[in-house]
């Protein structure tokens, strides 16, 4: 059976993908421009034998998702910037207790209530640093309705594989964009099965295998489990030992590095001889793609590097794409966020320039092309 083409809005595609990926629990608090995800899940989950709960707020929503996942279900919530802020403490809790779950953040103009119906990319650093302390972070940034479908499925796969929360970041434009999507047949949807403990005695809930990921106790299998946000030993019980804390934290953070090849995902366009490299993600990458195509037609050596996985940031892939660049431009719908990471990776040369837009309007191909031409003249 091959994929069938169907017209979907981004948020609808997200809900369908979640159900296809085996998500059977959704708890959320509707917020523009993510509300259609909750709406579609409220129809789809009961039909699929799952559970939909509209919670009293976003703190409770992510808490319910964590509980459902600990109980053995694939679980998800969806929100926008203000709700994502409320969820941060519990996202850290899920990272610390190693509970797989998926958080969809449809970005809108901010800060605070901001511009609810307007697009933005202002949560990129919130996705990375929004929760206190050091924690493993995985965030994916689809650029089309098709990619919302595939990346939502990948988010569930990575969450299960790594036992960690995974964030999918996109914006109002693609959330409410109608595009043709190829829906793969069910047998083509691959999501890793949860790594369950085998029922043997002496079970240590946070003792990891070589892959850095501990097996999880399935409720009812008779394992003794203690789950806490306190820094804990392999036993799951709190520790004050510096040696144990260091070992457990390094394992927690290190599991991302162990699986980097399977997490990172990037796309390049015309980078092999690019003099000006544009680094863009989400809807802005599609404006950049058009700008690069038009610039190439006019003889300007422009290229595009698009991180699909924004966290962990794909450092080596960026360095490869920037090999021939004499300048780097980072357009984003914020005052300059991912540009800081690009500057950190690239270092002193070539120069890395931000191009920010914070007026609630999407970035246009024209303004990106103009900025590239300017850089090409002086590079």
């Amino acid at each position, binding site marked *: 059976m091959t994929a069938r083409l169907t017209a979907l809005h981004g948020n609808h595609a997200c809900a369908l993908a979640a159900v296809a990926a085996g998500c059977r629990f959704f708890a959320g608090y509707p917020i523009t421009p993510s509300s259609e995800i909750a709406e579609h899940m409220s129809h789809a989950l009961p039909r699929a034998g799952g559970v939909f709960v509209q919670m009293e707020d976003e703190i409770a929503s992510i808490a319910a998702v964590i509980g459902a996942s600990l109980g053995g279900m694939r679980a998800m919530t969806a929100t926008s910037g203000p709700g994502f802020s409320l969820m941060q403490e519990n996202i850290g809790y899920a990272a610390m207790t190693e509970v797989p779950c998926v958080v969809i953040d449809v970005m809108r103009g901010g800060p605070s209530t901001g511009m609810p*119906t307007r697009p933005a990319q202002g949560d990129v650093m919130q996705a990375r640093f929004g929760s206190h302390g050091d924690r493993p972070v995985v965030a994916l940034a689809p650029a089309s309705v*098709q990619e919302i479908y595939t990346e939502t499925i990948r988010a569930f796969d990575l969450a299960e594989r790594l036992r960690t929360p995974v964030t999918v970041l996109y914006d109002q434009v693609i959330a409410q*964009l109608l595009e*043709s999507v190829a829906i793969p047949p069910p047998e083509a949807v691959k999501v890793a099965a949860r790594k369950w403990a085998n029922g043997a005695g002496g079970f240590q809930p946070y003792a990891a295998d070589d892959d850095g990921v501990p097996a999880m106790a399935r409720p009812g299998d008779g394992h003794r489990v203690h789950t806490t946000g306190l820094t804990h030993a392999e036993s799951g019980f709190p520790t004050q030992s510096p040696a144990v804390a260091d070992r457990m934290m390094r394992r927690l953070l290190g599991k991302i590095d162990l699986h980097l090849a399977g997490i990172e995902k990037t796309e*390049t366009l015309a980078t092999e001889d690019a003099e000006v490299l544009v680094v863009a993600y989400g809807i802005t990458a599609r404006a950049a*793609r*058009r700008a690069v*195509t038009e610039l*190439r037609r006019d003889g300007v050596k422009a290229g595009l590097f698009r991180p699909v996985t924004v966290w962990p940031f794909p450092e080596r892939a960026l360095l490869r794409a920037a090999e021939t660049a004499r300048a780097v431009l980072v357009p984003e719908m914020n005052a300059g966020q991912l540009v800081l990471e690009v500057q950190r990776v690239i270092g002193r040369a070539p120069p890395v320039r931000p191009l920010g837009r914070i007026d609630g309007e999407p970035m246009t191909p024209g303004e990106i092309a103009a900025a590239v031409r300017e850089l090409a003249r002086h590079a």
Partner: protein
Amino acid sequence: MTRSTPQGRPAADRLEIRLAGSGGQGLILGARILFEALAVEGRRASQSQSYEPTSRGGFCHSDVVVTEDLSDFPLVTGLDVLIALDQVGYDRSAGLIKPDALVLVDESIATGPAGGRLHRLPIAARAVATGSPRIANMVALGAFVALSGLCGPEALAEAIRRETPEKFADLNLAAARAGLSLAEPLAA
């Protein structure tokens, strides 16, 4: 996992269409119907929407970009077609109109210098005469299809049947026919 394209391909031919006006006029539904009408004829498009946080009023537009390249920029950059149902919709979109664009507006709207492809039609009046002021979007779609020939009237009718509630199908189809007959003499 890295996907690479060696060189930028030239963008496929694009046609950029905007329905503009105020919230509550059915502009987003209108664009969705246009998207579906194109799909009926096997053509591809992206349909986007922009609105303000009020359910009635406030500048609203919904855009359809007709392109075979699904990775292309899905938003408008210069309008080949503007369909405006009120003054705010026209005024806020005027800066994007291409020189040779097809501009279709309600007769109540004051526009810039009239080019050869500017059409001021009694869209709202025809909607009221057909049965409801709320079907001006369908009248406009019918007139647009007659003027542009972008898709056949049958594809438009099929899309209306697919995208609107059954109990309003007859009214919506009558409105689209009213728009077609309004504009057909002008298209010749």
